[in-house]
């Protein structure tokens, strides 16, 4: 990734309200801030805060970010498999889509991007928690792209869940599982 | 004025208040208008309480606002009805100032109703002196919220009809109803005795502000001879016979 896109990374995350799309994007942004000169995070969601379509665009770069709004990104993270089709047009050629495998429909056209199915929900359930697949997906993204050092994300998690040790632990575990998953796929 | 400590401390027994400019602002008013009389009370109170150096006056729009050219304290003339909004900000930013609004009944109760309610809701530590002459003086004697039932104005040529124009608003009672209001009274200047009483009310109102307790309000009845189509003497009679029964004089709160 680094070579192909230089010192810039951009990713569109999409899902439904309540899935932790925006917060995953925020965590990534804050982590990236420690490594990159410029970071932008643009949320977009429907009128209903829960259950409606929800996406954010995160860009981090050492060059000035011309626009926080982009049509297509190097990476897509799809939090709800059934939305893959709708968001496919927004990946750059040569990019990577990480998609939640549950809810995914068959019959996609072959295109010039790589798709990685992440059984985030399944893993989360096997870990006994449904609310953490956003971090499994974020972990996979970091595992695959190495866009930010994982420690920076972990630091962010520690700040975010400073007073809620249990939640912190769960999120860290989920994030680490995601990383592992991402690295295996890449290998 | 600041350097003139000695003269300031002496009791003034006659003549104009010291903070009045020469020639006095009363020259701008119709003969028999009682607005300058109320201005005079405020000036006397500011001097007697020795707070005129900290005072900032915020004016509404109407005949009452002519005072801006006739006294020498810091004064802000506002958008119509908004004096209490502007006063709010000044007091919040400069809590040591003595901040008071001078407003007419139309300015305070019609166009300025939102600002009036807002300031009382928040219990702003400011003082309002509202002049009530039961009509819009400056613009030629139109219906005001305080116009009496049956009173003829240029926009109620047949007299105020409650079915069409509703009923007079009693501002001092309304103000008293707010928890943020710590003092509310209604006075008049139609007799020397009432002059003294009104002055006492205004003094108390300022004292509440100095004590930092909340919003204080004094309504003062005022004559408007040209628009009432009465001689100055008959205006005083009207106040006694028609207006005071409708707007009773008293301390309603505090």
């Amino acid at each position: 990734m680094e070579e192909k896109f230089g010192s810039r990374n951009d990713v569109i995350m999409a899902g439904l309200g309540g899935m932790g799309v925006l917060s995953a994007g925020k965590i990534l942004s804050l982590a990236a801030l420690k490594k990159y000169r410029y970071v932008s995070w643009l949320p977009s969601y429907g009128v209903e805060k829960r259950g409606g379509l929800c996406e954010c665009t995160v860009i981090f770069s050492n060059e000035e970010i011309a626009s926080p709004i982009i049509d297509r990104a190097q990476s897509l993270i799809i939090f709800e498999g059934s939305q893959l089709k709708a968001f496919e047009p927004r990946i750059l050629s040569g990019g990577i889509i990480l998609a939640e495998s549950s809810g995914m429909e068959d019959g996609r056209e072959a295109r010039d991007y790589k798709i990685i199915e992440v059984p985030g929900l399944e893993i989360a359930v096997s870990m006994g928690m449904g609310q953490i697949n956003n971090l499994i997906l974020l972990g996979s993204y970091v595992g695959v792209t190495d866009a930010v050092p994982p420690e920076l994300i972990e630091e962010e998690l520690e700040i975010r869940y400073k007073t809620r040790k249990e939640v912190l632990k769960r999120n860290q575990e989920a994030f680490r599982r995601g990383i592992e998953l991402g690295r295996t796929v890449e290998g | 004025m600041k350097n003139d400590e000695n003269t300031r401390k002496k009791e003034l027994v006659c003549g104009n208040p010291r903070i009045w400019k020469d020639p006095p602002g009363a020259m701008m008013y119709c003969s028999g208008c009682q607005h300058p009389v109320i201005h005079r009370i405020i000036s006397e109170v500011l001097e007697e309480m020795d707070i005129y150096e900290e005072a900032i006056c915020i004016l509404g729009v109407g005949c009452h606002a002519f005072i801006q050219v006739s006294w020498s304290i810091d004064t802000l003339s506002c958008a119509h009805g908004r004096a209490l909004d502007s006063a709010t900000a000044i007091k919040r930013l400069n809590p040591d100032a003595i901040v008071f609004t001078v407003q007419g009944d139309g300015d305070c109760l019609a166009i300025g109703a939102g600002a009036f309610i807002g300031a009382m809701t928040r219990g702003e530590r400011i003082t309002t002196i509202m002049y009530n002459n039961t009509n819009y003086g400056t613009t030629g004697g139109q219906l005001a919220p305080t116009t009496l039932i049956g009173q003829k104005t240029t926009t109620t040529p047949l007299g105020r009809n409650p079915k069409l124009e509703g009923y007079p608003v009693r501002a001092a009672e309304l103000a008293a109803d707010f928890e943020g209001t710590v003092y509310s009274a209604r006075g008049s200047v139609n007799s020397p005795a009432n002059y003294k009483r009104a002055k006492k009310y205004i003094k108390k109102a300022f004292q509440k502000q100095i004590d930092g307790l909340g919003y204080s309000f004094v309504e003062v009845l005022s004559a408007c001879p040209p628009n009432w189509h009465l001689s100055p003497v008959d205006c005083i009679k009207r106040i006694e016979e028609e207006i005071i029964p409708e707007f009773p004089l008293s301390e309603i709160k505090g």
Partner: protein
Amino acid sequence: MAERMFVQGNEAVGWGALYAGCDGFFGYPITPQNEVTQWFASEFPKRGKVFLQSQSEVGSINMLYGGAAAGFRVMTSTSSPGWGLMQETISHCVAAELPCIIVLVQRGGPGAGSIRHAQMDYISVTRGGGQGGYKNIVLAPASVQEIHDLVQLAFYLADKYRNPTIVLADGILGQVSESVDVKTIDFGPLNEKDWALRGIGKQKDGKCRLINSAAGVLPVPPYPNYISWLRHMDEKYKQMEADELRYETYKAEDAELILIAYGYTARVSKETVNMARLQGLKVGLIRPITAWPFPYDIIREKAIQGCKFLVVVDSLGLLIEDVKIAVESRADVGLVSILDRHLPTDGGMIMPGRVFEEVKRLI
């Protein structure tokens, strides 16, 4: 020393104001700028500064009138319907020569319109939207950093000219978060506010101050009458035009087609310029940073050189009127408007890809 932070556009208004030495914020809740009000509510009182939620936008602007008259740095923030409500007293502020800042985070209109981003108040903002025909400097940031910077500049310019200054943002800029260097920016010295109301005991000369907005009713010293006062105002506006024009040009030097945009659509347009340049197309951008005064001259110059223009704005046009004034019929002026959003909803926005299509069509 700058502190590097990750800040939402709406919050950057607060940081900018804080570092500009703002004394008081007066505001009324309205979407999509609620984070501004909330920021001041949580950050100002603990620093000994004034935050007050007014009873309406009419209340807010009249609080600014008072606070400014008393010599304080005061501001409010609102969105389009609130902007409409404030017009009367913005005009009074101009007339009374009271410096204050109004941040307008535009949303869709007319009426209650939408609660999302748009750029539909351009004309009322740049033409003096209230009674009497007046001018305010209008600063139009296009990034979160620039919101922070221009809020500070706004305070400086307001004090310099004793006039309200408008910061013109939009719902996208309000919602986006970006990395920002937070710091005080020094614009140079300003005159003391010896005209402000403080109570005569605090006036250096012991003389009273009177501030009013009716120069035609009561002459305002040193102007003997209304017309001489208007002449003074006219000179002030002319000085603002001469000295305060700000704009950015981006790859405009050799451009055959120039995009013109402010605010969030200027960012989208910059991306479009980059896309076009990758394909060897000579496209550039002129971005007004002051929407008033407007950069007519540079646009006219480009028109004389034979450039075409494409206005990119999230409204039905508005901005295009200024561009047409500038080019004086010398050049074609195309438009990508709110009708070209990628979704036909209030959540849709103008995207670089759509602008690029239009670029390819025009060039």
